[in-house]
């Protein structure tokens, strides 16, 4: 437990942080960081633990955004109920998509999931114009009611993200997690050892979609305005991948560290060096991949087997 004490302290500090009477800017930055910690950790459950690199995770983020927005504005469902339903819609779609895409391997899985996310974006973008209806509002996007202060979103993000990290933490040690790791290392051997690899892969994929869908729902209410090109942007998926890689893919706290560091970098360095920031980020990432293939966390823990 001592090893994880630092994370409990971090969490407690975050709980009491609003007592400092922060300005709006800091709240928004913190919410942004939490959102990315959640997204990278949720992405890591499928891609980090099973090794199936998902390039379409943003699809479920967008689905969560739109589901919550539509449920709140068109059906008048309260926020938290809408959030849960959004997560479930996301899961439902993921079970269907996962059953087919999870049979593919390596880069083909990446291509298929990327195509899925792009397809959903196009559907949301063009549905209304094609069928002469007003459901998704096309490229106009949807505006949500403004009802809460920054602290409300901060705590919502904090609880959900802590829940996601805790989920990853538990999966890392339980039976479900062993199945995922066995699949990552040797899928054939996993089958021979009695693991129903198909079912476990789809379960992981659906769980990731559920968590990302919920984060998408909060995002919609937090930003109060969403449009397909924003919430379905492939750059979000790339961010999740980079953050997980940077921190340490397949570990519990790697994506947390990666998302934290890169979000801050984005905020601080990005503001100062508007044009060269992406270049610097690219160089840093290259160095990490070459010299720290286990990510940043590899530096801290110095591998689990070292004696």
């Amino acid at each position, binding site marked *: 437990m001592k090893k994880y004490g630092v994370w409990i302290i971090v969490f407690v500090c975050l709980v009491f942080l609003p007592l400092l009477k922060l300005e709006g800017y800091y709240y928004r930055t913190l919410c942004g960081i939490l959102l990315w910690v959640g997204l990278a950790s949720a992405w890591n459950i499928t891609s980090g633990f099973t090794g199936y690199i998902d390039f379409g995770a943003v699809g479920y983020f967008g689905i969560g955004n739109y589901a919550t927005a539509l449920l709140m504005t068109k059906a008048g469902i309260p926020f938290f109920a809408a959030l849960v339903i959004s997560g479930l819609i996301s899961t439902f779609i993921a079970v269907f998509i996962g059953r087919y895409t999870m049979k593919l391997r390596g880069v083909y899985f990446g291509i298929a999931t990327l195509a899925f996310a792009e397809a959903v974006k196009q559907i949301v973008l063009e549905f209304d114009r094609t069928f002469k209806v007003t459901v998704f509002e096309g490229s106009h996007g949807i505006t949500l009611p403004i009802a809460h202060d920054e602290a409300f979103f901060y705590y919502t993000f904090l609880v959900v993200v802590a829940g996601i990290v805790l989920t990853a933490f538990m999966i890392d040690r339980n039976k479900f997690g062993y199945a995922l790791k066995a699949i*990552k290392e*040797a899928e054939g051997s996993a089958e*021979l050892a009695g693991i129903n690899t198909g079912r476990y892969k789809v379960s992981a994929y659906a769980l990731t979609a559920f968590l990302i869908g919920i984060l998408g729902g909060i995002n919609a209410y937090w930003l109060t305005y969403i449009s397909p090109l924003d919430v379905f942007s492939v750059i979000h998926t790339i961010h999740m991948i980079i953050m997980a890689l940077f921190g340490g893919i397949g570990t519990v706290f790697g994506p947390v560290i990666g998302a934290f560091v890169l979000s801050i970098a984005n905020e601080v360095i990005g503001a100062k060096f508007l044009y060269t920031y992406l270049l610097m980020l690219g160089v840093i990432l290259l160095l990490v991949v070459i010299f720290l293939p286990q990510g940043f966390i590899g530096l801290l823990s110095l591998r689990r087997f070292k004696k």
Partner: protein
Amino acid sequence: MSLLAIRNLLKTFGALRALNDVTFDVGEGEILGIIGPNGAGKTTLFNVIVGLYRPDGGDILFRDKSVKNLLPHQICRVGITKTSQVVHPFLTLSVKENVLVALMFGRNLTKRESEIKADEILEFLNINDVKDMPSTAISLAKRRRLELARALGTGAEIILMDENLAGLNPRELEEGMEIIRELKRKGKTLVVVEHIMRAIMGVCERLIVLSYGEKIAEGLPIEVCSDDTVITAYLGEKICSV
């Protein structure tokens, strides 16, 4: 009654008949050896039995029930698993965790129950000393032993061993043979593919010879290896006399 019955098994890869009308039985508690030249279809046979490949004809019966349409994990639960010739451990997991996975999923145990059983298996196979090492860091001999540990972990009644003794030094080989005999005493049924004739003659009670996907001989080891067809197809010289 035979525990495992292979009936007219056919497997083709394009125009090649990797297995052609192969029929044999494996009795309960038996150690059956399968020999034959490279490319005879020995590994293909194993892969078809455990469900990694779909057969193109014939049937596989386990306790008189067909298992030919099951997936590998289902066949494992039914009671058949194999150790692979090219070892594929779960690399980032420790030796003990490798066995844990097999116990948890092959026998559907909880993690805690599996911990105890894993120690027993590692003890039995004499690789307890490396149980906390990553499976990348152990010698080939121990990796082969680990492959067997995983197979035992699943609790399968029949273990198909694909060249589990290849590449070992004489002492390791002797140990490996003793383990096979010990497994028989514990009631396991084993099908052993091996090129090392000393090991085959030392442990097997019955032999089958495959050549170009067909069964060309079957019988007691001593009979089979003095068979002229077998000598021409595989052995090359007479290694034993009746």
